[in-house]
């Protein structure tokens, strides 16, 4: 095979992969965990002016800006990255203020009352969990600010109640397992309609 032919083939291959694999993913976007009181996805992406002020005022550093790999429409919008910090809107450094909502100039993130505060839920991978593997841990249970979100089996192994969990990511951030046994997903999230 000639060098030119090889390069041509390589170019075509790359184009096909990006057409069928990468591009749809970028266009569709990922299911992101949004700050508390964020508008529904389409409205959020339309209203947010990507000013990054929410990320700047977040006292825990939990809010980061979505990158291109998170989706074309989502680039620059705020998302919660529980590995960087938990959302402490429920209890802690934010002190029930929702500083991200206070500073948002366009209302893409709004103040939300406690019953409607739900960013998502923590998801357990029991194969990685220290307690489920027989060790003693339960750091997740220690740091959880929502009573009933985590309950224990035999006072030793945690189970996560997605309905009660607000998706603050405290347990994900604190989980000492390597790799982490917990991830934060947007499952069950409650968003606001623009009015």
């Amino acid at each position, binding site marked *: 095979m000639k060098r030119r032919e090889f390069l041509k083939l390589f170019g075509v291959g790359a184009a096909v992969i990006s057409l069928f694999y990468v591009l749809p993913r970028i266009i569709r976007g990922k299911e992101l965990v949004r700050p508390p009181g964020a508008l529904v996805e389409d409205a959020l992406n339309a209203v947010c002016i990507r000013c990054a002020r929410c990320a700047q005022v977040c006292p825990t550093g939990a809010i980061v800006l979505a990158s291109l790999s998170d989706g074309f429409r989502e680039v620059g919008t705020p998302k919660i990255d529980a590995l960087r910090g938990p959302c402490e809107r429920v209890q802690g450094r934010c002190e029930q203020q929702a500083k991200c909502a206070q500073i948002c100039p366009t209302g893409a993130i709004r103040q939300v009352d406690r019953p409607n505060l739900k960013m998502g839920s923590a998801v357990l991978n029991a194969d990685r969990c220290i307690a489920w593997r027989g060790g003693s*841990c339960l750091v997740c249970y220690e740091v959880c600010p929502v009573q009933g979100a985590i309950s224990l089996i035999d006072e030793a192994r945690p189970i996560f109640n997605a309905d009660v969990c607000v998706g603050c990511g405290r347990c994900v951030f604190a989980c000492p397992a390597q790799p982490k046994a917990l991830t934060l997903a947007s499952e069950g999230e409650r968003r606001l309609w623009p009015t």
Partner: protein
Amino acid sequence: MERSETEEKVASRISVSRRTFLKLLAAGAVGFLGAKSLDLLSPRVTEIQTGTTTATVTKTATVTATIPPASKAPGVILVRGGPGVSSQALVEKALELLGGIEKLAPPGAGVLVKPNVGFYDKDAVTDPQITAAIVRALRRAKPARIVVGESSVRGNDTEHALRVTGTRSLAEEAGAEVKDLGKDPTVTVGVPKGGAISSVNVSKTVRDISYIVNVPKLKRHSATVTTISLKNMMGTLPDSEKGRFHQVNLSQCIADLNSVIRPNLVIIDATKAMTKRGPTGGTMVDLNLVIASLDPVAADAVAAEELFKAEGASDPRGAVSRIEHIQRAAELGIGVAERSKIEVLDVTLS
């Protein structure tokens, strides 16, 4: 002509001094490496015999710790308060019964007061009034410095916990410096007797002080049954080490840690104890009790028994004997866990 001669002289002097300098440098390097290989520069763990108790403290080549013998002091002191008796009065009485703080803390020592401020919730932390009362009492012993230090539970912000619980303001008002130990540089300390770990990274502040007053809260704990003084020492570690403890073997690691960073004095805040569940969200029970001892293992064993009694357990002593980290600590010789061997003085203030 004359000038060039001077220059030559100067040059020769410089060349000689450079050689001498290099020699000196080489000698210095050899000396330093030699000392390092002999482990003379790193912190050491030294056993100090004091009367009836054996205390293990970490110290550097420059800091010498002297712990006065615990003459005639009973093993564990329980001071109960009737209605209206302040927590400060309980602390003062407990210290008096231990022989007085002036006789306990060596004058001129660096003292660390280690409350449990692991959480944002006031029920889950040491009453800041008790921490402040201990700081005020310690000042009478004329220490070089008093540090109130804590590194909150993994994932919690220590600075926020110190502020919202009122620990920072009250401790500073009492005359202590307040420190987030989680943000401190760390030093590695060998754990020669360790059952699960052979070394541990602790906050540098802890290494640099010579007297530790452990002021835990009496609570239930999801992973270790109870959290009292032995478990409270995890608040001298960076988050990474706390994580490692959970991965390795939590109870054994707690015992191992206390075998090298052993608190010299334990004063347990059991004014309001957390029963049923913990370390957060348990049922609070008013005991108006302060428990003090020079032996952290004995203190924990007696305090745990009080906790189980408050819960109405049928066999509180049996339950204590099943708390793994307390038993492991006793096995390492940190203190006495067997209740029949612990002398208890139980007084009530009214």
